């Protein structure tokens, strides 16, 4: 046994590493999940067989309860709810980290640990853990639209945040230097929790994915800190991997939106959505019917479908897949152009389309599809807006200037499926709708795509 514990840690770490390694490609990814699961089992066994552990009842009960809660959650969760699910699970994980830290704190609340390395690690762990917990809850609430997604800002906000931050750190430091001041501890926890809330409320709902990725890396760091405090290398490794992943995803998103972390965290982006949305003007907009679209699509040699957030909210992915099937049956070459931040989380579109059985080779990256678009006969935009907004490329004064876009406007002709002339997440006007080669297909993505697919399949009941 004595020998098993350290080796369990090594093997588990190795398996977690392999798990991420295999995640690099769809063909090996599921093996990656297996590796991760096995690693986890080994880690848990390693923990259970430690001599220190004597009482198993509570542990077993908690684990059974946890599994009982987790399994249905995993099975019933609709794919469109993935972002919320990620947010709430960060809250759970961070809470666990925080509570473990608290328990450890009370164990170490003696003078001899004062100012010790373990104490500092514990405080850092709890700070990150508790703030990530509440922050994730807010993020969840915003994504689930339990509370408004609009950024909340009030006078003196920054000052307040600053004060809370300072107070939290100050009390944390005091406790690290003199752990016996247990009466201060609840205040520390409360402040950390409060700070988490304050951090997220000023951030717009659609920025939540970036926030979630950041919280992901915080949670990872917290786990590593716990590893430092408990002297557990496995936790250090797992935490570091998690931290790196969250950080990189956040960077990817910021790059793809051409925005800085600072701008995401403090920019109050998205507060303006309403103002511009649906601004009327006199430029001509050509709109077409499903029949016309169907006809042009089946006569096209190559079609690029560009899905966006609208496809997700309309849950149109299955209809889109039908459309894809109908088109390839007619010998049309169909590709999907996936923008890194299309939808509301990284890889959002890929998961939805994969769910609807679109082969993943057809899902093409921004950089690879743009050179092909000028040759495309038809670009069919389904509920995407900012990610195809040419002003990001052409108008340096635009709010999203410099954001890489899918250059749908370069295609020979363009169809846009959306319900209105309303703006997208960035809340800005989109010139593509007024181009002479653009035709609008107004309606809900699901209905509209469905009708077009029917038309192509030769059903042709038309719109209802």
């Amino acid at each position: 046994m004595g020998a098993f514990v350290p080796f369990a840690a090594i093997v588990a770490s190795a398996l977690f590493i392999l798990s991420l390694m295999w995640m690099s490609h769809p063909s090996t990814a599921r093996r990656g999940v297996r590796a991760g699961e096995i690693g986890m089992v080994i880690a848990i066994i390693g923990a259970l067989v430690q001599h220190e552990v004597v009482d198993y009842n509570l542990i077993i009960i908690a684990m059974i309860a946890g599994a009982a809660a987790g399994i249905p959650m995993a099975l019933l969760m609709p794919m469109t709810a993935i972002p919320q699910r990620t947010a709430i699970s960060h809250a759970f994980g961070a809470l666990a980290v925080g509570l473990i830290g608290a328990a450890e704190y009370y164990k170490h609340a003696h003078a001899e640990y004062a100012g010790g390395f373990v104490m500092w690690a514990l405080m850092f762990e709890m700070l990150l853990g508790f703030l990530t917990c509440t922050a994730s809850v807010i993020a969840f609430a915003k994504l689930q639209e339990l509370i408004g997604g609009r950024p909340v800002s009030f006078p003196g906000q920054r000052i307040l945040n600053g004060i809370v931050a300072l107070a939290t750190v100050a009390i944390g430091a005091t406790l690290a230097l003199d752990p016996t001041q247990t009466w201060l501890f609840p205040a520390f926890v409360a402040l950390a929790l409060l700070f988490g809330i304050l951090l997220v409320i000023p951030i717009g709902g659609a920025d939540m994915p970036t926030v979630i990725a950041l919280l992901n890396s915080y949670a990872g760091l917290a786990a590593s800190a716990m590893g430092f405090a408990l002297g557990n290398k496995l936790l250090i490794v797992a935490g570091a991997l998690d931290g790196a992943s969250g950080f990189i995803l956040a960077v990817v998103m910021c790059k793809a939106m051409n925005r800085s972390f600072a701008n995401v965290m403090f920019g109050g982006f998205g507060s303006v959505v309403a103002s511009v949305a649906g601004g009327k003007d006199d430029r001509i907009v050509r709109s077409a019917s499903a029949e016309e679209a169907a006809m042009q699509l089946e006569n096209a040699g190559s079609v690029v479908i560009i899905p966006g957030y609208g496809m997700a909210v309309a849950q149109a992915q299955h209809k889109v897949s039908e459309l894809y099937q109908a088109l390839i049956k007619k010998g049309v070459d169909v590709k999907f152009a996936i923008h890194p931040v299309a939808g509301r989380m990284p890889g959002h579109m890929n998961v939805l389309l994969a769910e609807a059985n679109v082969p993943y080779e057809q899902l093409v990256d921004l950089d690879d599809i743009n050179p092909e678009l000028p040759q495309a006969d038809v670009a069919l935009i389904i509920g995407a807006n900012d990610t195809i907004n040419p002003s990001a490329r052409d108008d340096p004064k635009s709010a999203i200037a410099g954001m890489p876009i899918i250059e749908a406007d370069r295609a020979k002709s363009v169809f846009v499926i959306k319900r209105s002339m309303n703006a997208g997440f960035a809340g800005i006007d989109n010139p593509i709708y007024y181009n002479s080669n653009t035709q609008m297909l107004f309606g809900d993505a699901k209905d509209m795509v469905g009708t077009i697919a029917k038309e192509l399949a030769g059903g042709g009941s038309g719109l209802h």
Partner: protein
Amino acid sequence: MNALSADYLFVFILAAFLGFQLIKKVSPLLHSPLMSLTNAIAAVVVVGAITITGEEGATPLAKTLGFIAVFCATVNLVSGFMITDRMLKMFKPRGK
């Protein structure tokens, strides 16, 4: 800071470098499953929770905190791995 903590720092740095190298190579296609996978892996904090809850001479408070921690972590790791697998099952190559 003592030699021991230096030791942990060593492991952390290596793991962090490795993490960056590995994640950079994950295809954007899989960024959503990646999130839930790392999420599940981070739930390994359950080992810490287990120690807290089960170790001898644990105070009632410790047991309670530990109990909740074990519960939360378990929810994450179970649902995390399962959802990841569910998502990945859906990614099919052409002609399948």
